[in-house]
């Protein structure tokens, strides 16, 4: 362990350089809608062929940390989430920026990202091995019930217009139907279009809904500059001790939620930020502010999505089970360098495990420094006149969607969902429930399907397995509670 620390810091400055380069590239790619960390890491993989395994992991893990963090910049300033993980950040970060506090919104996001990364790093460093064994104890029905909890949270984050939120959520689920059934692998609803066999990919749908629809919105606007942030006040990026202290509870809670969601395979940063956001809203003293520029909302979302990094690395280093798409690529990188991930890695190549763990810490610190130092400059992004910004953004959207699978079909999907997003916005149907439904439904269907197949069609395990039952009760409560609250409130009003 000491050797690794030495190697990573003073012994071999090359590694420090890789941390810097990786984090910077990650932030950059994370901030550009259409380019994701998964893409960057997958595409950089061949470049690491000639590196030492440890060096390669340093570079790739730094990119991971940077890319999840960078998304908050464009999410806050332009309402275009740079990465899927920061969709929830747009809900409050953007209203804050519009209200003339872009610097503070960025500052809160950066602080929360840093703390989220740190807390999940503590989990990673201390509990990598013991925790990972827990995840195999959970069965398909347990996972299904857990995802159900996240799904019904749709209802609680769209309390302003419940009917519109629920409709949007179901629409998102409906969009996952065409293509391959996650439960059986059969294709359905493809209308004979072979390209549709894989359904609609997450990335083009998200780019379409958020970035392209925003571009369409801007094109129709009569303002000269991007409507988002009219005056940029970059002060407030470096927050005072009072701010750190005020948001500490929220950050710890959101980070712990994010870490645990990260540990569970298959559900990544997107779900982590949704769950933490809803949790913060339900304990908040001012829940109505959520969605209109609540500081707590920004903090919860960003702390949680960064915390999923450490969480997802836990099963990866301990058992070779990837917790997210990016982790799956990291797993491929280990194999590429002739390292067998899993319990053997701990025994045969402990230096690799410690390198990964230490890199996460270093990259987190570097990310914080880079973001704080550059935020002032980055926040100017919002003052670029539309004639420059929009053409560049839309070209990146097109190229990014194409590069995902090397096919034009995804670009058409992106354009289609751009129009859909624009229409939904005009009809005041919220987009967030759509995304949650779209992301979670395939996981829910896969887990339910696998569970039913294993139980020969019986739903009984949903109530006989204690974990599944617990989550099931939680989700029922989450559905009933908001309704109860509205009902009680309206009764109180009448009296």
């Amino acid at each position, binding site marked *: 362990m000491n050797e690794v620390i030495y190697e990573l810091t003073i012994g071999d400055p090359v590694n420090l350089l890789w941390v810097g380069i990786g984090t910077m590239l990650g932030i950059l790619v994370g901030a550009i809608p259409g380019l994701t960390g998964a893409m960057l890491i997958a595409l950089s993989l061949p470049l690491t062929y000639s590196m030492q395994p440890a060096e390669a992991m340093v570079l790739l893990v730094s990119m991971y940390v940077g890319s999840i963090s960078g998304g908050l910049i464009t999410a806050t300033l332009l309402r275009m989430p740079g990465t899927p993980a920061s969709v929830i950040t747009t809900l409050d970060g953007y209203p804050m920026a519009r209200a003339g506090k872009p610097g503070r919104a960025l500052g809160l996001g950066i602080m929360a990202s840093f703390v989220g990364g740190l807390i999940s790093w503590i989990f990673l460093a201390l509990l990598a091995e013991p925790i990972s064994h827990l995840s195999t104890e959970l069965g398909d029905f347990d996972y299904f019930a857990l995802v159900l909890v996240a799904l019904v949270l749709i209802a609680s984050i769209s309390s302003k217009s419940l009917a519109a939120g629920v409709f949007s959520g179901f629409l998102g689920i409906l969009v996952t139907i065409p*293509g391959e059934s996650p439960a059986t692998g059969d294709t359905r609803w493809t209308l004979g279009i072979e390209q549709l066999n894989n359904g609609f990919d997450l990335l083009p749908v998200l780019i379409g809904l958020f970035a392209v629809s925003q571009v369409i919105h801007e094109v129709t606007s009569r303002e000269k500059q991007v409507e988002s942030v009219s005056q940029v006040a970059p002060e407030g990026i470096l927050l005072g001790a009072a701010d750190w202290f005020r948001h500490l509870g929220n950050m710890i809670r959101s980070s712990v939620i994010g870490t645990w969601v990260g540990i569970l395979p298959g559900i990544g940063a997107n779900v982590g930020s949704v769950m933490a956001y809803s949790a913060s809203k339900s304990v908040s003293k001012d829940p109505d502010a959520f969605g209109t520029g609540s500081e707590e909302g920004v903090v919860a979302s960003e702390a949680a999505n960064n915390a999923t990094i450490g969480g997802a690395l836990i099963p990866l280093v301990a058992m070779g089970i990837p917790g997210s798409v990016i982790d799956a690529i990291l797993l491929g990188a280990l194999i590429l360098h002739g390292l067998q991930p899993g319990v053997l890695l701990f025994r045969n190549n402990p230096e690799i495990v410690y390198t990964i763990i230490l890199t996460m810490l270093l990259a987190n610190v570097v990310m914080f420094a880079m973001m704080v130092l550059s935020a002032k400059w980055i926040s100017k992004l919002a003052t670029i006149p539309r004639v420059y910004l929009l053409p560049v953004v839309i070209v990146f959207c097109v190229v990014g969607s194409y590069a995902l699978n090397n096919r034009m079909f995804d670009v058409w999907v992106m354009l289609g969902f751009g129009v859909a997003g624009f229409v939904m916005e005009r009809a005041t149907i919220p987009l967030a429930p759509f995304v949650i439904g779209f992301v979670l439904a395939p996981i829910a269907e896969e887990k339910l399907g696998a569970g039913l197949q294993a139980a020969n069609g019986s739903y009984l395990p949903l109530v006989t397995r204690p974990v599944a039952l617990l989550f099931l009760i939680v989700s029922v409560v989450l559905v009933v509670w908001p309704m109860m609250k509205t009902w009680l409130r309206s009764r109180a009003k009448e009296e």
Partner: protein
Amino acid sequence: MSQRNWIRLVVLLVVLADIGWRLFGSGSTANDQYPNRAITLVVPFGPGGESDTFARMIQKAVKDNGFLDQEIVVKNVGGAGATIGSGQARKAEPDGYTMMILHEALITAQASGKVSYGPESFEPIAASGKTSMVIAVAEDSPYRTLTELMQAAKEAPNELVFAANLGAPVHYAGLILEKDFPGAHFRYTQKGGGASRFEAVIGGHADVSAFSLGEYVSFKDGGLRAVAISSAERHPEVPEIQTALEQGFNFVHANMHFWWFPKGTDPQKVSLMAGVIARCMAAPEVREKLALRLSEPYIATGGAMQEMLQTRIGKIQSVDATSPDVLPNIPLWVSIATATSLLVLVVRRLRHSDSDLQQETTELIEEEPEAVERKGRLPRLGNAGLFVLMTALYLLALEYLPIDFRIITAIYMLDVAVLCGGYKNEDLQKLFTKSYVPEMAILVPLLVHFVFQSFFSIQLP
């Protein structure tokens, strides 16, 4: 010189550098001999997986040893059990510049009815690399041999849970075993990749699964126990595992990577490429890498490969992959729920439309006076239509016109800038004299093209 002229000079230099680089830099002189340009290798999976790693290893060996005058460019087209990529390769020009690497999934996808085409729609080039499969149970499982396991599956048919990747080779391993032991039936559950199957077995959610030997070795200390290996003889790395053959099962099988050209490719090109792959498999660095993953540097071409392919097709087609249908009709339920929620929304909106509107306006006034003002100025909805139309035209041009990405994109960017800048006809001149839009429209496509093509080696349309 003014700032504008400096910028113009930079743009000019970049454009010249780009043209120069393309004319002289790449160094390839056109000749008639195949191959005279880069060959695209379609990998129908995402990056980082088993097939992708294998493909990139061969790609690197070809480049490092100079087996071909031209480079092989890997193109990942993942999704839907490799059928998106195989569909794309099938429709490519059979000119020898598109090939594909894909294992038995090409056969199983057809057998399970996922797609209508199979190996007959391609020209097989070679079969390479050989990885045995291991049938494994949890460490605390009562079954110690394959016979015990199959006996249990016969005594209580459809009770033992087999973690599979439905419609993929792992699923067929179970089906072929069942066929060898009449009366035995597993209950298949969808688990996907090796890590998920491993997790299901050691977590007690499935009784048995099949793994590649490499997967098995990396997972076994996590609590797996092998009951059989599919090689003809015991494997030197894991001599303790009995073969299925010595336990009386006719289950001799190895996962292989097959290489394919689109149907109708010149046989000479096929045999040239087969030779290249064979030389790669003999290269020491490839052998070393394969040994690490417990794969054999096996290679078969020509008649031997054809024969083996036919046996595999026969074996896979001889079993029935349909599982009992125990799942609810999810598309139906989701459709009903969506329609219902839409109905509720419409009814609510109609009923509350007046009061809602009032409330909204009061809210707006309280929060932000300028927002109300903005509401008064109607957005230019026509622009939205124009923009979508323009983008659609741009995409069509990218897809079907043989014009360079950079030129089409530059024109498109100019159009978008004109549209969102709200320029009128008389202002258009201003666009060129007062702004940097034209410079941007030239530079950005060049940069994007350079970064993607050279750094990420993604061929833009």
